[in-house]
């Protein structure tokens, strides 16, 4: 029953990302709902679930029409899942500021690795443009993660 809920929510967010994220695009930048989902899952269920779900969702993303660097998404989302899994039950141990800083840093790191690989040329040609691209991609997803924090904050997740 629990695994059914797990699969249904995963497929639902994947469909939202596949079909609706383009409607929210600003130029070529879109929010990454799947990264937010992995963050939630990993904080609730821990490192193991975070890594496995990150890897599987990464594979699903790359199979949904990625042109080059097939395999980059499972790598990135596994890292996100593993790192955010360390935040399971950490809200009571850390101060809210450090807890927020941790998940913001994890998402920032994920997009940084993504941009380093995808925009390696731009980093060499125009570093300022590269940092703007990273900031744009990261901030747009942060906006949605922030909105979700108001609706359903991480600290309300009960560790399983």
């Amino acid at each position: 029953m629990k695994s059914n809920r797990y699969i249904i929510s995963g497929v639902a967010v994947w469909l939202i990302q596949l079909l609706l994220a383009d409607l929210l695009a600003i130029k070529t930048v879109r929010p990454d709902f799947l990264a937010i989902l992995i963050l939630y899952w990993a904080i609730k269920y821990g490192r193991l679930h975070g890594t496995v779900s990150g890897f599987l969702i990464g594979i699903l993303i790359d199979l949904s029409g990625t042109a080059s660097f097939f395999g980059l998404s499972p790598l990135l989302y596994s890292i996100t899942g593993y790192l955010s899994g360390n935040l399971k039950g950490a809200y009571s141990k850390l101060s809210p500021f450090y807890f927020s800083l941790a998940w913001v840093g994890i998402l920032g790191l994920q997009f940084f690795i993504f941009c380093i690989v995808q925009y390696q040329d731009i980093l060499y040609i125009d570093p300022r443009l590269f940092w703007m691209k990273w900031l744009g991609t990261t901030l747009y997803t942060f906006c949605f993660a922030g909105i979700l924090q108001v609706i359903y904050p991480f600290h309300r997740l009960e560790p399983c």
Partner: protein
Amino acid sequence: MRNLYLAIVKNRDHVIFIFALLFSSYILLNNDNPRMGVIRGKSAEIVAFISSPMTWVKSLLFLEEENHLLREKNVVLSLQVESMLNLQKENDQLQTMLDFKHQTTLLLQPAHVVNKGIQPNLLSIIIDVGTDDNVHPNQPVLTSKGIIGKTIETGKNASIVQLISDVNYRLSVRILPSGATGILRWLGDNQAQIREVQKNVDISIGDKIITSGFSDIYPAGLPVGQVAGVYDERGSFQKILHATLPNDMSAFQYVFVVIENSNEIE
């Protein structure tokens, strides 16, 4: 052995993480594997099928506006065709006088963009044509304005297109009227950079950029963009050009795949 097993079970989080990293790296390093291509082609078909209702709704939403624009464009193109027919007649006469025969035929397959990928940045699209429509990997994809990418994986009725905005994308181009050639790479926001251009050629802002024809993929003469800036690289024998690309990468719904071309020059 038992101790090893117990250590793995105890540290299964870390073991699974390392396994995930290694397996992802393995896939990343085996992108060109043909078996991987088959899986990606099949998955593109599934994504195209899932995306088709949404694409249909989107096209209905924009139908009236698109119809209006097409009517306007039709009038403009009719006028252009009229003047081009006269120019072609004149060109034929001049070619006959020079005993020169130049023929270029491009066979285009129209396609609908069914999905624009899932990654946080737009780097690829899925179109609704595949091997059933004679579309194969490494065929140029363009809009009426110019080149936007090439097909990289094809299924029966869907194909993945690598966009010009992908980091692995390079295009051999020629700048007109000087005839200089260079290698184009995307920079962002409809801007591109052209390197490997000889320093001694005369290039001005606004010069037209077309495909050079040096590549096995792109026939010569396909529109690419316009020169937006010319810079001399110090200590180098090359110029660096900045180019404006005409396509808005976030706003096209229909594309054409060049499925056949033949250049015959005598």
